[in-house]
């Protein structure tokens, strides 16, 4: 069995500033060794440890999609020691990636269902992975209606803006983009994510699941909206975050009750979250 602490060596292939305030960058990595990409087979919703030798590791959701080949992509907010080093890296630099880790959005169960995605701020990475996966020609017919509510403070703070605009033009996905306050040239919704969700999102029923990722404040006000719309707690899917080290359930710090966010999660239904201590 493979040593779970040992990262795959990767080369930084591309770095792009992701938001207007430059606090987020999107990194594309290419595996150095043949065969490692195949071993890194992942599903939308999983995360990986980005590993910089001599600095440390950070758990980050995988933003690329399983249907995209030849690279893996992560969008990272500059916040601490490792993310700052990452932001200072140049294309061509060598580092490591460990994973894929954690569970994923329950794709088998979601087949044949309508999907509502609610995202806020920079918690849109694994949601992007999910949307690209569902929109892939080989997969689109497996799902019913797809609705996406995605909000950010300003147009320049929306991640993957080019793709968002492309998706707006399609008729097999209903995009509901929103920003906090009116801005010049903005032709979409204005308002916080929860009220826009209330206004635009489809009603909840047995065949409709909501995947929700965003800052705590957005989650707090979106959950009552979803309840009002008729989504039951086992039809609301969330992705939790906690401080992590190992990422595969051994080091002990990310526990919420008997569940470990890294291994039993990060994806939980609201029903499951409600049965654990609120220690995330």
């Amino acid at each position, binding site marked *: *069995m493979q*040593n*779970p*602490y*040992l*990262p795959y*060596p990767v080369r930084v292939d591309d770095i792009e500033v992701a938001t207007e305030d430059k606090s987020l960058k999107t990194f594309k990595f290419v595996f*150095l060794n043949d065969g490692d990409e195949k071993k890194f087979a992942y599903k939308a919703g999983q995360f990986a440890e980005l*590993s910089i*030798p*001599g*600095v*440390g*590791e950070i758990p980050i959701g995988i933003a690329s999609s399983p249907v995209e080949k030849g690279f893996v992509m992560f969008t990272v907010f500059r*916040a*601490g020691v490792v*993310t700052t080093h990452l932001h200072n890296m140049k294309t061509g*630099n*060598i*580092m*490591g990636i460990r994973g894929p880790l954690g569970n994923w959005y329950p794709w088998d169960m979601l087949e044949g269902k309508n999907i509502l995605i609610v995202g806020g701020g920079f918690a849109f990475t694994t949601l992007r992975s999910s949307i690209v996966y569902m929109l892939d020609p080989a997969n689109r017919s497996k799902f019913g209606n797809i609705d996406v509510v995605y909000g950010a403070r300003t147009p320049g703070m929306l991640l993957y803006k080019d793709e968002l605009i492309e998706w707006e033009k399609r008729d097999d996905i209903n995009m509901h983009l929103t920003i906090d306050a009116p801005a010049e040239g903005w032709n979409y919704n204005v308002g916080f994510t929860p009220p826009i969700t209330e206004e635009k999102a489809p009603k909840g029923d047995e065949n409709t699941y909501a995947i929700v990722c965003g800052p705590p404040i957005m989650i707090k006000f979106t959950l009552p909206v979803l309840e009002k719309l008729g989504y039951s707690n086992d039809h609301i899917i969330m992705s939790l*975050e*906690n*401080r992590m*080290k*190992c990422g*595969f*359930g*051994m*080091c*002990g*710090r*990310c*526990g*919420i*009750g*008997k569940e470990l966010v890294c*291994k039993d999660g990060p994806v939980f239904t609201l029903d499951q979250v409600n*049965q*654990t*201590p*609120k*220690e*995330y």
Partner: protein
Amino acid sequence: MKVVIIDKGQWAEDLEGLKKSYQLFGPVGEKDYTVFKTLEKGMLPDFSTLNTRLSPKSIVFPQSEDILEFSLDETREDHHIMKEVKKDHPSRAVFGIRPCDAKSISLVKLNFDTAEYKDPYWLSAYEATTFVGLACDNPASTCFCTTAGCGPYHEEGLDVLLTDEGDHFVAKALTDKGETLIKTAGWATETEDTFKLKKKTAESKITSAVETGNLENLEILDLHGATFWDDISFACLNCGTCTYVCPTCWCFDIQDEVHGKSGKRMRNWDSCMFPLFTIHTTGHNPRGTKMQRVRQRFMHKLKYFLDKYNQGIMCVGCGRCVRQCPVNIDIRRVCNLMNSYKPEDACAAQE
């Protein structure tokens, strides 16, 4: 399995002989305490201490251990590529590990040896080690092993169990590993199995106990919201002593260290008592108060572990935390409070 006599007159010579085939560990006096150390040439294990200050968990789970190495020298082809630090453990044997500490290693194994992931460092050390236990005929007042799923003659996790008979030891092989060690040592004088009787006598000397029978029936959220946590944690200093001396505590941290152009990734014991254990980069801390951290430690040991593995509590009753806590927080009291908790009383109090 074999039961043999080991003549104490031959003990030193026999162990010296064993050192040719095994790296031996045992309890050794160091300043005011006894610690488990490698027995160098001429050193004998000191069996006079019941429980060492630190548990022998470090033999398979060192307090600090290199796991990966790398070079940052860009003139090298493999710069910034991390490599496994290979552990080439020789055959090793621990002499004088107490049954509680041996059982704790089998509990910790549940964490490091799973169907999905295996910790190669812990497992290679574990697999290379033969555990030669020493039964406890004179337990301490803080020993509560018999009600913590263990006992003074408990065999789980051991390869050989020794009992002291004055001028000789009686050794019982419990596994093939144990048989091999006994054979290698040349201990061949077989004798009767008197362990049963001695076990009963030793168990009857243990007067301290915990009650655990009701823990499985309680809901996690009820216990988590119980009213007694503020009281339990009031005096706690969050010093972490309990987690460091505990044989079943396994939580660890991973850190990188660089000297010049070469570096190592290591793992170090960590503790749920420390705020840094869980703090997010944003500053948000899911267990930001001392009460939350104390609750985490006891809930993990006495409820989460029990629910997750169905192998009893994550405590073997060694009593180290009871003896060494600077403010006298006593896991036996906490366990009994948890076990007898009635959530409906808390609801009634709130109404």
